[in-house]
């Protein structure tokens, strides 16, 4: 049995172990590989940079802990940017489990920038109904939002009173892991009310969104952990996504090597037959 035949019969658990090590070692000993900025991510950054102070940004937390690894670092970097720019953040969610994750971001960042709940930021909670809800929200927010996530009447907050319809919203930023999510915001909210939509989505969903970037319906996009790392780089806030990019790159190299070896073995076996 030659070396190629031996590799072809290698136990898959050895491959799992190698992938695990390739992910763990760079986390323990960071290499600091550079993170290139792509245009879709730069567009999100530029959109926020261009907003005047006090503008209202809707942050829709449309994911749950299953996608937290990719989308939570992006949420953290984005809201950090909004607070730094003195924008007002109006958080809501199309997924119920996203709301507590959004609150964790506020708990971490609000004290850092001395932001006041109800004035500079608010969380109006989970809003069911998908497309129907978004259309109602754009026409008249009061039809959909009566209280914040804790059940306090929305009119008791200055920021709650400030958002009456889509016209009061400067940008919608959706952190989306699927359905309902970024597509609903694009197809229903942007098409109906013309509001600028930016998005962050899981890497699996990212290719589907590029057509909307090309058509201009989506202004910018953070795709997966890479997009989050790029945004962290832009806002100069090295976080979990940047830390993970070393691992991401090393594992990708390893997978490419596996694919090449696999193909060499395949060609060898075909010729042998």
């Amino acid at each position, binding site marked *: 049995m030659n070396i190629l035949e031996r590799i072809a019969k290698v136990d898959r658990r050895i491959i799992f172990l190698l992938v695990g090590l390739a992910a763990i070692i760079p986390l323990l000993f960071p290499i600091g590989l550079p993170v290139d900025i792509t245009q879709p991510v730069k567009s999100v950054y530029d959109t926020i940079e261009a907003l005047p102070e006090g503008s209202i940004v809707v942050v829709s937390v449309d994911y749950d802990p299953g996608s937290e690894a990719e989308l939570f670092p992006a949420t953290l970097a984005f809201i950090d940017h909004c607070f730094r720019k003195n924008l007002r953040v109006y958080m809501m969610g199309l997924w119920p489990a996203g709301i507590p994750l959004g609150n964790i971001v506020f708990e971490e960042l609000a004290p850092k920038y001395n932001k006041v709940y109800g004035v500079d930021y608010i969380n109006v909670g989970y809003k069911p109904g998908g497309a129907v809800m978004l259309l109602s929200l754009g026409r008249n927010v009061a039809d959909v939002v009566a209280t914040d996530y804790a059940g306090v009447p929305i009119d008791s907050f200055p920021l709650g009173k400030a958002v009456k319809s889509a016209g009061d919203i400067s940008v919608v930023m959706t952190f989306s892991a699927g359905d309902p999510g970024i597509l609903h915001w694009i197809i229903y909210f942007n098409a*109906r009310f013309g509001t600028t939509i930016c998005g962050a989505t899981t*890497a699996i969903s990212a*290719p589907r969104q590029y057509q909307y970037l090309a058509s201009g319906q989506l202004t910018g996009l953070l795709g997966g*952990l890479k997009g989050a790392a790029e945004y962290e780089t832009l806002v100069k806030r090295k976080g979990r996504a940047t830390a993970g990019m070393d691992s991401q790159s090393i594992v990708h190299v390893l997978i490419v090597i596996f694919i090449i070896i696999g193909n060499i073995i395949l060609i060898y076996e075909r010729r042998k037959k």
Partner: protein
Amino acid sequence: MLETIGVWIAALLTLAIYSFLYKDNPFYKVAEHIFVGVSAGYWAVVLWSNFAWPNLFEPLVRQGNLWYIIPIIVGFMMFAPLFPKINWLVRIPLTFTMGVSMALFVLQIVQGDILPQLQATFLPLAGVSPFQFISNLLIILGVIFTLIYFYFSKEHKGVLGGAAKIGIWFMMVSFGASFGYTIMARISLLIGRLYFLLHNWLRLI
């Protein structure tokens, strides 16, 4: 203290799930069953407290708005097929659902998806930079050749067959990009869990 306990439970369950990579084992099965049970319980609470109670039962019970009995009755009609004598009643909620869906989705998807995407395909080839020319041409040809592949009213032979083959190549590039992103997503999830174990649990980073 509570947070520490939570972190330990999450870490041990994470390791139990990953133990499946070695082989199927009781630790994995316990974690799997806990996940399914917790998910079912969580969704039961969410459906009641976020959907049913605030949208239906609260206006009916607390505010005494009797109109809300109608959606409850219409909702119960969904179970009509269980009773052969009145199974025709299911048509009422189904018709209502279909009507709303048609009104909402057809118009909005045409306005919000199909038309803007068509518009985005009609790209200029004159008066643009060489890079933009190539980019626009690729999009136009990609759409045309891919659509030809899905034209089944004529046998894929000759020019049509050749164009359909080019369409396959465009789709292969698209699938390759999607596959690459899929790998990135899976690795990101692994990194997320490893970060949790190394940072929140072991405090090594």
